[in-house]
């Protein structure tokens, strides 16, 4: 998990850092305080002599004399202990000062020293010196110093002198001192009050700490880190101190700089993600840790996250708003809408990474709000992203990954926008079926139905491949001289990320979830020993699927208990107007690829189902009304339109928003009316502007005019604020009444009456059957309120349409797309909400004619695979090899995988061999580890020899396309069968989800 945890990193740094140094510098003065004071006075006398020599310029000798004496004095001051000493002195609030400190105060010694410095030529070098001295003093003092004005005032004055940008050494010392100050303040929050009341010529004292630190927020290296740590300490203090919080939000540029800094940093990210492997689909830590610009960005994002975690709600809210309006809307939005596919891929992958990395709810919320509600070019970001699933190429995979991330959040709002709101009106089901939404299939009929869709050619019973071709293990067979011009990159191991493909649910799920899915091909278990056993084993992994399904559903159900409603067809009610004002059906969802034209198949596939031994009664599919095969519309009402990749003519690549400049300023001035509340005498901090300029200087220029105007920006902000205010308080739904304990409640009586036939009467005559089997009777009986005017065309939403469309196309998708795709659908199927569950998994449900069911889609895939298999005479052999290959791949992963520390970069050779693992789970039940390893090595050997590819090598470049088609189809057959098992397992697991999880 890449979740951010800043505080854990921070704590040790703040506390322990000083220790070694103070130990080494400890002067030999353990002498008695009186002696120390004498020595101190002595030094001061010498300094004073120089200080008082007015008029003439200080000689170099004077300088070094003052330097040496000051050094000694400050060391003594640091060692000075409060009178009375002892440990209890710490506890007294008002303990007496130590003698030296008293003397320092009386003489106003530090102030006079500083004045002397300021009079002369106060070079950078001397500034650094002073900063270091103070830093030493503060970090090592044995008594609280900052609470004493004679110490604090000169310190603040010194700081204000250092406000201008300067050389690196000065900045280093400055940040270190500021960091030290913040640590001290964190230890003794009372000092903060003093800061408020002491003014410098730069405004209130607390502001100067800020204004000095802020420019370093986005710096790299230790300097930036120290600055962020220091700021974070202040933020943490703001949590319990509203005044601090208010001064941060009202009087500092902290939030705008932090948020718009993200914009600037974003603009320097690579526009194109260089990847070598075709299977790459999301950014893992290993991928970005080497990209400095991305590291920089992630540091800042992480910092935002940390600030939100610790800061006062005021600060939190302001920062979150700025992130939305200063980063997401003006930068992320346009970035996601770039015209070049490469840039779309990059920005989608970035967004996915950000979503996976943010751990604070408030920040996540703002990201999600942006994705779900923000409109760019008249479409919500969400709709745009949904549409891209339909694209070919990597954009599809990256988008699927993003949705995997979104689904794994178990966020009601996301699910509402993606799917649920389309299902709420229940217009997708026949009226008579409305009540069946909540039905649970407890007899495994759905599972039986899914399993029955496993293509005939993939079942164990199907004839084994001709023996002579498989006498030799395919690995070796292939190893010999097959000039591999693989169009399918699978065996080419050099993806930069070494993704685990088959770990489809891995990325954001908790560790135990990260277990890869059960994999492995289904059937095809010929009764021979030897290498075949491994493949045969895939036939028996159903139990694993059941276990995984149980785990996933439990987790999902548990997570969803925070939702506002059960989504069971009754609660919540669908709103009056049709559900989808936002994305009208004509929204481009991408065309069906030409290959998906054959629409007739699905019905047949579905119809075949009744053959299942347990699928006896199915009012569902058989009677599902008119055949939707006419195919005018895409699946479930989505319509074909242009590829979302934008018209090709529009090739001008827009640069990343330059207007952050404008935003930076705009956001500084506009929102919340904050900076208007400047205290008198307070001036804009020049350093902030310079920071912005510096940051923006790195950003590529953007043509003027394309930026968001400040007006628009403030307008948007106002809208958001209004929206937030209008939220209204919602009472949580009342807890269900306790079950009655008294003997027999009325409900119980009624319930009993409904099922029991106490008299000899026919069972069928019971009144109030939960679900009268006769649809007609039910139409009559169903209460009128349920009969809303159904929208003209039931539409289950663009997300479902796109997924189903892509599913139908499975035989033509690449292996990787199919993994992600089936994983996503499986993820969706794990949601326990009856509306969604019944839509995907209740095979008895009768849908409106225009609504295609998952079962129909899968049926069509089944038919495609079967007809492909029929046309390919060596299909069984191909299938066998494909399985073997996938298993070997998984095995390699497994062999290195689970034990090894994942984040470490491995030696290249190993890294290379590491392939995503479909077979990972499979290995759990491989009979013997040694055997497994042996097989893995064999397969690996094959890979290295350049040969192990299960599918035929290409004789001819011209036949590339054909070979690719074959390959995709054969892999699809394997994945599809496994997918069906997975769905079947999920369907079964739903019936046994513990009610405790959902209460």
């Amino acid at each position, binding site marked *: 998990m890449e979740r951010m945890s800043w505080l854990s990193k921070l704590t040790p740094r703040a506390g322990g850092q000083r220790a070694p140094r103070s130990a080494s510098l400890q002067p030999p003065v353990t002498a008695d305080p009186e002696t120390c004071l004498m020595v101190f006075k002595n030094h001061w006398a010498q300094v004073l002599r120089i200080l008082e020599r007015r008029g003439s310029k200080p000689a170099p000798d004077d300088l070094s004399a003052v330097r040496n004496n000051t050094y000694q004095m400050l060391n003594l001051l640091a060692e000075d202990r409060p009178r009375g000493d002892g440990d209890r002195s710490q506890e007294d609030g008002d303990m007496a000062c130590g003698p030296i400190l008293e003397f320092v105060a009386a003489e106003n010694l530090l102030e006079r020293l500083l004045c002397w410095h300021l009079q002369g030529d106060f070079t950078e070098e001397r500034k650094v010196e002073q900063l270091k001295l103070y830093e030493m003093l503060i970090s090592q003092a044995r008594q609280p110093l900052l609470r004493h004005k004679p110490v604090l005032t000169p310190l603040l004055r010194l700081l204000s002198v250092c406000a201008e940008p300067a050389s690196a050494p000065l900045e280093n010392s400055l940040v270190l001192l500021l960091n030290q100050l913040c640590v001290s303040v964190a230890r003794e929050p009372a000092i903060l009050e003093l800061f408020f009341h002491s003014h410098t010529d730069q405004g209130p004292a607390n502001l100067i700490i800020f204004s000095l630190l802020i420019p370093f927020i986005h710096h790299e290296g230790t300097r930036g880190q120290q600055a962020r740590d220091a700021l974070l300490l202040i933020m943490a203090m703001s949590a319990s101190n509203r005044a601090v919080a208010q001064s941060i939000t009202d009087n500092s540029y902290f939030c705008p700089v932090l948020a718009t800094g993200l914009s600037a940093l974003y603009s320097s990210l690579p526009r194109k993600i260089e990847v070598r492997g075709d299977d790459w689909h999301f950014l893992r830590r290993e991928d970005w840790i080497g990209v400095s610009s991305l590291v920089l960005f992630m540091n800042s994002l992480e910092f935002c996250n940390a600030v939100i975690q610790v800061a006062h709600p005021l600060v939190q809210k302001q920062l979150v708003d700025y992130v939305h309006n200063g980063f997401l809307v003006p930068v992320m939005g346009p970035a996601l809408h770039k015209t070049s596919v490469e840039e779309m891929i990059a920005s989608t992958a970035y967004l996915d990474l950000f979503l996976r990395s943010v751990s604070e709810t408030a920040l996540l919320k703002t990201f999600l709000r942006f994705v779900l509600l923000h409109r760019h070019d008249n479409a919500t970001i969400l709709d745009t992203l949904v549409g891209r699933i339909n694209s070919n190429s990597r954009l599809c995979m990256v988008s699927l990954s993003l949705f995997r991330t979104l689904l794994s959040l178990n966020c009601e709002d996301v699910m509402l926008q993606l799917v649920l709101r389309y299902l709420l009106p229940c217009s997708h089901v026949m009226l008579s079926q409305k009540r069946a939404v909540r039905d649970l299939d407890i*007899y495994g009929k759905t599972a039986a139905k899914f399993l029955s869709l496993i293509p005939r050619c993939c079942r164990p019973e199907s004839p084994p491949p001709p023996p002579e071709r498989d006498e030799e293990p395919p690995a070796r067979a292939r190893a010999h001289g097959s000039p591999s011009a693989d169009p399918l990159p699978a065996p080419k191991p050099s993806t930069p990320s070494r993704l685990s493909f088959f770990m489809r649910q891995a990325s954001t799920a908790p560790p135990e979830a990260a277990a890869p899915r059960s994999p492995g091909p289904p059937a095809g278990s010929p009764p021979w020993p030897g290498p075949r056993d491994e493949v045969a084993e895939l036939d028996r992994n159903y139990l694993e699927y059941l276990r995984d399904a149980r785990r996933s559903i439990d987790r999902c159900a548990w997570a969803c208990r925070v*939702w506002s409603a059960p989504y069971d067809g009754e609660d919540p009610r669908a709103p009056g107007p049709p559900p989808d004002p936002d994305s009208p059906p004509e929204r481009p969802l991408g065309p069906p690829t030409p290959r998906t034209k054959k629409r007739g198949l699905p019905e047949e596939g579905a119809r075949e189902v009744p053959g299942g031994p347990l699928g006896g009664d199915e009012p569902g599919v058989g009677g599902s009304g008119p055949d939707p095969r006419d195919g005018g519309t895409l699946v479930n009402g989505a319509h074909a339109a242009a590829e979302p990749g934008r018209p090709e003519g529009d090739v001008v690549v827009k640069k990343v928003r330059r207007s952050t400049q404008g935003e930076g300023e705009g956001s500084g001035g506009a929102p919340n009316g904050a900076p208007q509340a400047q205290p008198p005498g307070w001036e804009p901090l020049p350093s902030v502007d310079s920071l912005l300029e510096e940051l923006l200087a790195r950003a590529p220029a953007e043509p003027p005019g394309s930026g968001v105007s400040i007006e628009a920006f403030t307008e948007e902000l106002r809208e958001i604020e209004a929206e937030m205010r209008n939220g209204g308080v919602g009472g949580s739904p009342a807890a269900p009444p306790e079950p009655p304990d008294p003997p*027999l409640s009325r409900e119980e009586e009624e319930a009993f009456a409904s099922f029991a036939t106490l008299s000899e009467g026919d069972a069928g005559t019971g009144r109030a059957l939960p679900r009268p089997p006769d649809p007609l009777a039910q139409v009559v009986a169903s209460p009128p309120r349920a009969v809303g005017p159904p929208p003209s065309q039931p539409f289950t939403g663009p997300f479902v349409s796109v997924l189903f469309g892509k599913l139908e196309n499975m035989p033509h998708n690449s292996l990787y797309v199919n993994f992600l795709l089936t994983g996503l659908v499986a993820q969706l199927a794990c949601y326990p909400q009856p509306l969604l569950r019944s839509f995907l998994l209740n095979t008895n449900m009768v849908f409106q004619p225009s609504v295609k069911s998952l079962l129909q889609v899968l049926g069509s895939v089944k038919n495609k695979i079967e007809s492909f298999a029929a046309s390919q005479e060596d299909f069984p052999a191909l299938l066998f090899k494909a399985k073997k290959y996938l298993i070997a791949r998984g095995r390699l992963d497994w062999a290195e995988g689970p034990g090894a520390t994942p984040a470490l970069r491995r030696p290249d050779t190993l890294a290379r061999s590491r392939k995503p693992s479909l077979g990972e789970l499979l290995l759990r039940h491989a009979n013997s580890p040694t055997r497994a390893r042996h097989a893995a090595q064999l397969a690996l050997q094959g890979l290295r020899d350049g040969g192990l590819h299960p599918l035929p090598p290409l004789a001819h470049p011209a036949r590339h396309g054909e070979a690719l088609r074959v390959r995709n189809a054969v892999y699809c057959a394997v994945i599809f069968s496994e997918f069906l098992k997975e769905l079947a397992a999920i369907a079964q697991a739903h019936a046994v989800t513990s009610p405790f999880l959902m209460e």
Partner: protein
Amino acid sequence: MNTLWSMSTGSVRKRPDAEEKTLSGELRTSPLRASTKKQLPSIPKNAVPVTKPASPATSSQSTNGTHASYGPFYLEYSLLAEFTLVVKQKLPGVYVQPSYRSALMWFGVIFIRHGLYQDGVFKFTVYIPDNYPDGDCPRLVFDLPVFHPLVDPLSGELDVKRAFAKWRRNHNHIWQVLMYARRVFYKIDTASPLNPEAAVLYEKDIQLFKSKVVDSVKLCSSHLFDQPKIEDPYAIVFSPWNPAIHDEAREKMLTQKKKPEDQHCKSMHVSGLSWVKPGSVQPFSKEEKTMPT
């Protein structure tokens, strides 16, 4: 009541024997549709999920439909689903536990808290037919024959059939049997009794009936700590209150009740997100603030 029942915790649960049994392939469709559907061939006996190379005959059959080998999973899961439904019902004073050896056998106990049978603690066993859900209704047998018109005085079997003349899948569930079993102790029915003596006494001499019931309740209580009738790791065993063991357990149960959230949270770290105001279908409609992190 000063007893606490505890279950021995068996080792890892094996697959129950039930899996080795098979489902009858005879399928019953819902009554109104039955006539229009063709009957499917039954799954061959002894089909198990693993290994056996299929004989030509079966393979030709099962290519038509589902893999026969998944059958046992359906049965097991159906029973598990039934059990889940029982849990959902929260029948007061009724506890059941599937046996270790077979998902088709459930151990249970009923605590009667009011009425004639007050203070009765009756252990029982539920036997589910192996062609469930297409067979007869489950049988419910009390460990000791309770004195009751509907309980067989010799075998202790409760007359379940009278309430479930015909067991209908989708309509009848095991929790209903349990509810019925509880109900008979509150609403006494004397029609066509299994124990005519009890029936007659109830009608004619309620006082004698009552005293016999009290005796019966006492008898059951006195045998409470007996070894379970059927030896099984998951059988329900009563033991005298032992503070060393039970105090802690009770404490745990009570505290668990207070904060079930925490208990679960430890095992599952995930929490979903929601900003939807209850009753609304608009995203982010909820008032700001207070999302659990």
